[in-house]
């Protein structure tokens, strides 16, 4: 399978931590997006313990870039180790730009492809830019692959302008020396070119930033959290922004405190969020039950990482689906959303707030390490077109009128029918208008105990049944509103379907588009809401399907089991538990195999 789309360029920079690999990559990314390119990035920091490699990868193209693709078109190696550790990922005919002396024992050995030696370190010294190796590299890359230097110059001015004029000048000089070196010393022997942008400037943000930004867009004004990789970025962004919007960010003493602080603030009228990773979500289980029982909305972001326990905190896994959907004692309705890519992360966060606010229910947003750290471009959102739900509160009946009538069930022996505010009145939607502390005449006691419609503790069987049903009724209401949150591409009558959730869906989308281009009769089904499952839509799209290929980044097939047991479909589960995201090339053969098998039937 070698259908390489030359309109896309995937470039990786690899070097020593501290050589500016990441900042060069980010600069290139910003500038590419400003020109109107779609970009997606991937980076790994040097491990805390061993020091060593930093890697930044950018993939750019003329259309929405939805995966890192399979191989690199360009590798920029700042040193020998950068070459050794990454060369296997470079296309055999890809371009290598490097800065080290190959030796006899350790030569640069490639059968095909083009190699350019650029003395980045030396040129940086010449430019008087102590940490300028990365800018030399950018200058060289710009010249080699047709990227306008002016954009980079402006980027440097923006980036370093706040530091000092001397820093700007030194970095500009380094950039120019890199470019000039290419002009004067190298003969261009490759075809790879950076795509032209479409002229619509895009914004670039990480998954963590997209979620934080989505939160303030939706009206979040209170955040409490406890630092944990890879979710901390959400907290640090909000720590800067929330106070400016008259909101608060609290670094709690632990995750239990974090969610409890959120519940308190939500009870008192704020839109609230906390973000964590698997270990923190585990700690929040009990409070999530309280949120469901007391009917207090909260958005909980889980930027999943490879577990269990501390696992591999900097690596990717989709391992928390079971915990998110099923990790409650008793019937404690919660909503689980899973964004597919950066733009989706922004939009789903707004949805999460709308659902939490409207349905007074906890909403878990399952993000992932690979999304949290990945930066990608998205169109500038049009705030006028984003629906933000604002709650209407209960009011005291006017002119001595009646309170809304509660159901007979609430009137039991020893429970006099007091005409007080029926905070948990049972409507078909499952939602009861609430009041906020401070509103006169609407006092009530929110509670985690089973209670009646007046919020009074009650343990009798009838009441229990009625109140459990009331809380569960929200699921139907949410299904009605969000039941269509399933992305489907391909042939409606296909017998082979692929399905995935979270970022794996975006990689799969890439593989599916490839297969569709080749004429394969398949379809892809990507649910974005995983609790309550959008059953009607899933069943409709799965009807007539004979085999479903499910790809998932975990060892047990948590989502595959849902598809198998909930929709009674034959599922071919493709599981990857290595701390790394899927590549399209790992998915395509699975689709081929499923197609073959179904034809054979």
């Amino acid at each position, binding site marked *: 399978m070698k259908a390489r789309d030359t309109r896309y360029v995937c470039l990786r920079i690899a070097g020593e931590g501290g050589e500016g690999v990441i900042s060069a990559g980010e600069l290139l990314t910003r500038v590419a997006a400003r020109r109107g390119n779609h970009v997606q990035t991937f980076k790994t920091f040097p491990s805390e313990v061993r020091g060593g490699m930093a890697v930044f990868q950018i993939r750019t193209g003329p259309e929405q870039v939805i995966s890192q693709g399979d191989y690199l078109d360009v590798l920029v190696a700042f040193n020998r180790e950068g070459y050794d550790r990454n060369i296997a990922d470079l296309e055999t005919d890809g371009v290598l730009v490097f800065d080290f002396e190959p030796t006899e024992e350790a030569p640069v050995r490639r059968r095909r492809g083009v190699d350019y030696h650029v003395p980045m370190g030396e040129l940086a010294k010449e430019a008087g830019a102590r940490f300028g190796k990365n800018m030399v590299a950018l200058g060289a890359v710009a010249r080699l692959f047709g990227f306008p230097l002016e954009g980079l110059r402006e980027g440097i001015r923006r980036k370093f302008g706040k530091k000092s004029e001397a820093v700007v000048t030194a970095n500009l000089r380094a950039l120019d020396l890199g470019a000039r070196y290419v002009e004067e010393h190298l003969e261009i022997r490759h075809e790879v070119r950076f795509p032209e942008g479409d002229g619509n400037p895009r914004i670039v943000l990480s998954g963590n*930033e997209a979620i934080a930004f989505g939160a303030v867009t939706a009206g979040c004004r209170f955040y409490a959290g406890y630092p944990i990789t890879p979710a901390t970025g959400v907290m640090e962004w909000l720590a800067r922004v929330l106070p400016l919007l008259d909101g*608060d960010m609290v670094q709690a003493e632990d995750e239990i405190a974090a969610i*409890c602080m959120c519940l*308190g603030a939500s009870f008192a009228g704020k839109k609230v969020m906390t973000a964590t990773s698997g270990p923190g979500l585990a700690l929040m289980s009990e409070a999530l039950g*309280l949120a469901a029982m007391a009917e207090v909305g909260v958005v909980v972001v889980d930027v999943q990482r490879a577990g269990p326990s501390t696992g591999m905190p900097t690596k990717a896994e989709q391992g928390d689906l079971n915990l998110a959907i099923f990790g409650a004692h008793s019937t404690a309705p919660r909503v689980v959303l899973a964004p597919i890519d950066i733009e989706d992360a922004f939009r789903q966060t707004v949805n999460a707030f709308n659902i939490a606010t409207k349905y007074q229910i906890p909403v878990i947003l399952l993000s992932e390490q690979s999304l949290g750290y990945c930066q990608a471009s998205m169109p500038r959102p049009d705030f006028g077109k984003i629906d933000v739900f604002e709650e209407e509160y209960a009011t005291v009946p006017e002119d001595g009128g009646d309170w809304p009538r509660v159901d007979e069930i609430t009137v039991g022996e020893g429970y006099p029918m007091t005409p007080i505010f029926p905070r948990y009145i049972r409507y078909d939607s499952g939602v009861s208008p609430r009041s906020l502390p401070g509103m006169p005449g609407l006092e009530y006691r929110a509670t985690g105990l089973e209670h009646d419609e007046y919020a009074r503790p009650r343990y009798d069987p009838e009441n229990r049944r009625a109140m459990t049903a009331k809380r569960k009724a929200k699921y139907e209401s949410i299904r009605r509103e969000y039941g269509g949150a399933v992305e489907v591409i391909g042939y409606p009558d296909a017998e082979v379907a692929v399905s995935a959730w979270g970022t794996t869906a975006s990689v799969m989308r890439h593989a599916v588009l490839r297969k569709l281009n080749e004429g394969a009769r398949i379809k892809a089904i990507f649910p974005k809401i995983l609790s309550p499952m959008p059953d009607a839509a899933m069943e409709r799209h799965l009807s007539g399907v004979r085999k479903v290929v499910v790809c998932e980044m975990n060892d047990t097939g948590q989502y595959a089991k849902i598809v198998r047991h909930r929709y009674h479909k034959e599922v071919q589960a493709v599981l990857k538990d290595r701390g790394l995201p899927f590549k399209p090339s790992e998915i395509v053969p699975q689709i081929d195999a499923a197609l073959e098998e179904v034809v054979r039937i």
Partner: protein
Amino acid sequence: MSTETTAPARAGRSAKSLRSDLKPVWCPGCGDYGVIAGLDKALQELGYARHEIVFVSGIGCSSRLPYFFDTYGFHTIHGRAPAVALGVKLANPKLHVIVVGGDGDFFSIGTNHMVHAARRNLDLTAICMDNHVYGLTKGQVSPTSERDFLTGSTPYGSVEEPVNPLVLMIASGATFVAQSYAANVKHLRETIVAAEGHPGFSFINVISPCHTFNREKDFAYYKGRVSVTEEEAKHDRAEAIRVILTHGEGELLGTFYETRRPTYDGSLADLRRRARERHGVPTLEEILESFA
């Protein structure tokens, strides 16, 4: 069913009482009744409107208290009330937030949150109904139980040293620390009024006997063993702790420590103001530019 009356029915109690008409489920003679009485009197004296009061509690016999007041309340989960209360207070600093709970709730499962609420000097009052036992779970040793205490979980006697809530709270940074007694409603009322008047984290440990599961330490036991301190509240932590620890036999009531420092909610308001003065109040469009 009758839904004629509009104002919440508050028949059968004094016009000014803030009590609800739910009858407490506590054992007759439980110390916590005294706490309700003291609170009701204090709140009336303070003149708080019922809608401005929020009781936040964890789990335990004592944590049931919010139901018995017709104010706002949040009966949460075991130990976490101080964290929930932080959210309530920051969301609406105008509210009078009162955290109530038991010795197990505050100083076993919830110690972490109590320490940090005190350290932050959140402006609220926390009232511990200290019966030196786990009441709701029917009699197990608690972190304030004395050594050798016999309970269902310590049939051969407890081998653990109790924590002193007053000392722990002073050391943690609480800015008002007092002890009172459920049978001395007058002292309790005065202490609550003083604590409410204090800006910052106020902690009151109320000796509140559970004669059901801590039989020895009933009201009769405390009679003649409690005394009100003659000393003024200290402004120095070490001095206050010395007063508490050097007191001999019996239980000392009184306000041991009081000091002023910026409250958490006040400091955050200040931080917001400074941040906005420095960076302005951005629109969403302006925030977007940081990603451009």
